[in-house]
């Protein structure tokens, strides 16, 4: 556990020293959402209707954009091989890196989301649910993304490829995340959607580190 925290701290330190990365994810998140009113027009009712979906789609894309550097920099400078040789299982290393990734991208997204909800005229009833749903959903995004990020190491055109691999797998989270927000707005039961998001999170937590570690192993062979 101490080694796990050590790894998380290392990745956080790296992210903070490089500075701009998290900020850029947040900036992308904001600008992606802000584009929608230009696309569909500034009419309040239209915006309120698509607010939840728009914010979720933008969150998905922002989370995905930052995935590439999850393993890539460590792979390029060789520290990934040292991490693989370290006396902790590679699965735990993956999990530590995912935690760091979520802290530097998922968490800033959740903090920014209310601001965007105001801009998109999301009805007040949806705010709490949106934040809760994002809090349950974004870790799953990082977990599933880690598998994709591990598989593309050393490939050509990694970034575009990553989106092709990961986005179809994100669809269930998008569906339940948006349904939760919609349910809150229309005064329906939010709980089932949240339970599904939780189930997806727990399932991903149990399974994806294995798949990502398998991906890393074959990349390091």
């Amino acid at each position, binding site marked *: 556990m101490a080694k796990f925290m050590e790894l998380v701290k290392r990745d956080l330190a790296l992210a903070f020293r490089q500075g701009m990365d998290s900020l850029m994810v947040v900036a992308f998140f904001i600008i992606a959402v802000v584009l929608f009113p230009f696309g569909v027009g500034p009419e309040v009712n239209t915006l309120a209707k698509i607010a939840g979906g728009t914010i979720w789609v933008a969150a998905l894309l922002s989370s995905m954009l930052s995935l590439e550097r999850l393993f890539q920099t460590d792979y390029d400078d060789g520290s990934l091989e040292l991490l693989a040789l370290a006396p902790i299982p590679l699965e735990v290393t993956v999990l530590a890196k995912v935690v760091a990734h979520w802290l530097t991208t998922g968490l800033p997204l959740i903090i920014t989301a209310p601001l965007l909800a105001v801009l998109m005229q999301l009805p007040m009833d949806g705010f709490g649910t949106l934040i809760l749903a994002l809090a349950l959903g974004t870790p799953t995004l990082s977990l599933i993304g880690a*598998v994709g990020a591990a598989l593309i190491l050393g490939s050509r055109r990694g970034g575009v*490829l990553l989106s092709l*691999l990961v986005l179809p*797998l994100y*669809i*269930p989270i998008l*569906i339940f995340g948006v*349904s939760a927000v919609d349910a809150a707005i229309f005064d329906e039961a939010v709980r089932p959607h949240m339970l599904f998001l939780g189930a997806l999170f727990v399932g991903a937590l149990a399974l994806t580190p294995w798949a990502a570690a398998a991906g890393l192993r074959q990349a390091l062979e």
Partner: protein
Amino acid sequence: MHRFANPTRFLKIAGYVQPWMAAVTLALFATGLYMAFFTAPPDYQQGESVRIMYVHVPAAWMGMFCYAAMAIASAVALIWKHPLADVAAKATAPVGAAFTFLALATGSLWGKPMWGTWWVWDARLTSMLILLFLYIGYMALQGAFDDRARGAKASAVLALVGAVNLPIIKFSVDWWNTLHQPASVIKMDGPSIHPDMLWPLLIMAVGFKTYYMWVLLVRIRQEITANKVRILRLKQVHGG
């Protein structure tokens, strides 16, 4: 299973089986299509356009079947390092993608006269579309590496991840669909389908399956031969 792991033994057997598969496929297609066009009755509601079903439904089945086959072959390749399993998974992907695309295309053609639109965000159509994306991602990952062995391994892991996810995606799309749309537009004629329509459908389905086996054999043999050619070329270059 390991008996057939030897490519030479496999090639020998495949050489015998392939013409038979071709013959059976052509015979089944000929019978199935004849029955579909001439003996099967038109539907009392949908008229003649119901005949698209005889291609559409088997193609959709095969789209899913091929993904399962690909995932199983990938698992075998990862676990036992079975040399032919990698080749089989790789050979299956484009065939499965083609079946899925065929199902979507015929579905769209069928949808136009039936529902008056080319595309409906129906649960089944949507999950087929996502299946197509999974195939495309698999093939793209496979071709993205300079080292073929890496491409094969990475895509094998992806195929397994996709196989775990596919039921979840299917379920969530169903859920999404029931929330966002009133009762579905498509309902097949219920569980009771007339034997005159069922027979051509089953014959076509088996025909699609043997067609897949046929193409699979051709593609595996081609892949093994291509590997041999590559190794010979490398030897030539290195003066070995």
